[in-house]
């Protein structure tokens, strides 16, 4: 055991010190935009415009609290954040936000009951995954898939240690369903990279996307990606675009004809 210093000042100095003490850590060379600590968490809470959350939360450039690092690491207590939200009075935004906090608790309660069994399929997958790769392909790990949108998401994850919830779902769906990689390989990888990495929320969300903890697999198409993430994406080439189909077409391509998806609400007619 070795006692570490606690007299450092400034985030750059801390970064250099930690790199020296933990030389095995991959150095991204940049500071994360979320400084650690309760005071930073309280500041973020103060700046969070909760009234916009209900309408904007699914958009990558919409108003979200980015509180997850602070709640996951316990700098802010989930209960105090819930009480803070409820003091805003009743509204759609408040209800949506509190229900997101409840998702976190729900995952924790399941994890509390199941223990490390959440690292395995919770249920039988609703689509075949027998041939999925069990190792994460190198091009995904390095963010060089050749699809600019996915590579942008991976770069954001590595450079910031944080992703918008919708981005996490896009990446998980891409990896599990479009690339046919086991959800566990993807979940383990993302767990290590996220500041708010938490087996309950992370691994059970991957299982939700995969359909081993939900009624159906989660997939997205070009129309959805452009609608919610278009403003932050560099633009993907249209030729050979794996996402530019209707949901019915994608289901057929990804899962075959045995799987009958529910009819989607969006037309998928972006192209």
């Amino acid at each position: 055991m070795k006692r570490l210093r606690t007299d450092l000042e400034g985030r750059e100095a801390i970064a250099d010190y930690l790199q020296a003490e933990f030389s095995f850590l991959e150095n991204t060379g940049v500071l994360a935009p979320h400084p650690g600590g309760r005071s930073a968490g309280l500041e973020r809470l103060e700046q969070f415009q909760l009234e916009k959350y209900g309408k904007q939360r699914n958009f990558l450039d919409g108003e979200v609290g980015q509180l997850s690092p602070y709640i996951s690491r316990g700098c802010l207590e989930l209960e105090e954040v819930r009480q803070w939200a409820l003091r805003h009075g009743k509204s759609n935004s408040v209800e949506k936000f509190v229900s997101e906090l409840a998702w976190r608790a729900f995952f924790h309660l399941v994890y509390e009951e199941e223990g490390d069994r959440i690292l395995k399929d919770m249920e039988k997958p609703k689509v075949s995954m027998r041939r999925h790769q069990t190792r994460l392909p190198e091009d995904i790990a390095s963010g060089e898939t050749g699809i600019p949108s996915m590579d942008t998401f991976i770069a954001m994850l590595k450079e910031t240690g944080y992703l918008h919830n919708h981005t996490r779902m896009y990446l998980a769906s891409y990896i599990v369903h479009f690339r046919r990689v086991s959800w566990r390989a993807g979940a383990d990888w993302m767990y290590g990279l996220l500041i708010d990495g938490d087996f309950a929320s992370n691994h059970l969300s991957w299982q939700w996307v995969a359909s081993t903890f939900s009624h159906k697999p989660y997939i997205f198409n070009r129309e959805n990606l452009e609608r919610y993430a278009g403003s932050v994406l560099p633009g993907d080439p249209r030729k050979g675009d794996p996402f530019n189909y209707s949901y019915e077409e994608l289901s057929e391509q990804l899962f075959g004809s045995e799987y009958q998806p529910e009819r989607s609400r969006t037309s998928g007619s972006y192209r």
Partner: protein
Amino acid sequence: MPALIWFNEDGLNPQHQMVQDYADAPKVYVFDVNYLKQWAIAKHRVQFIYESLLEIPNIEIYKGETVATLRQLVTDHQANEIITTETPNHLIKSWQDELLKYTNLITYPEVYPATDSRSPRRFSHYWRKSDRAWLTLT
């Protein structure tokens, strides 16, 4: 009874009730090197945790193997019990279980408005059962 407060990565609140209840207890955190390597934990998380710890007055931060380090610290501080926070994290739980063989352990529970032990396996069911509790200011 002399106590030692052990923070884990899921509970880094300097104002947590346990800190107030055991105001005189030494406060420690251990960066478990094997865990960081095994799960390829990124530097951003390590720095976030470290920065969070610096807000805890008189924190002692160590790197090493969690259980061995804590056993040594219990001896050094002549503590009879370890105070910590509950987490569902199975790795932290396994360290807590191991420590129980050597010392008393007091864990402060997580607080939720609805903690039915028979948790449904679909969020929609959980929410239907408990939305009123979640949406009521207490």
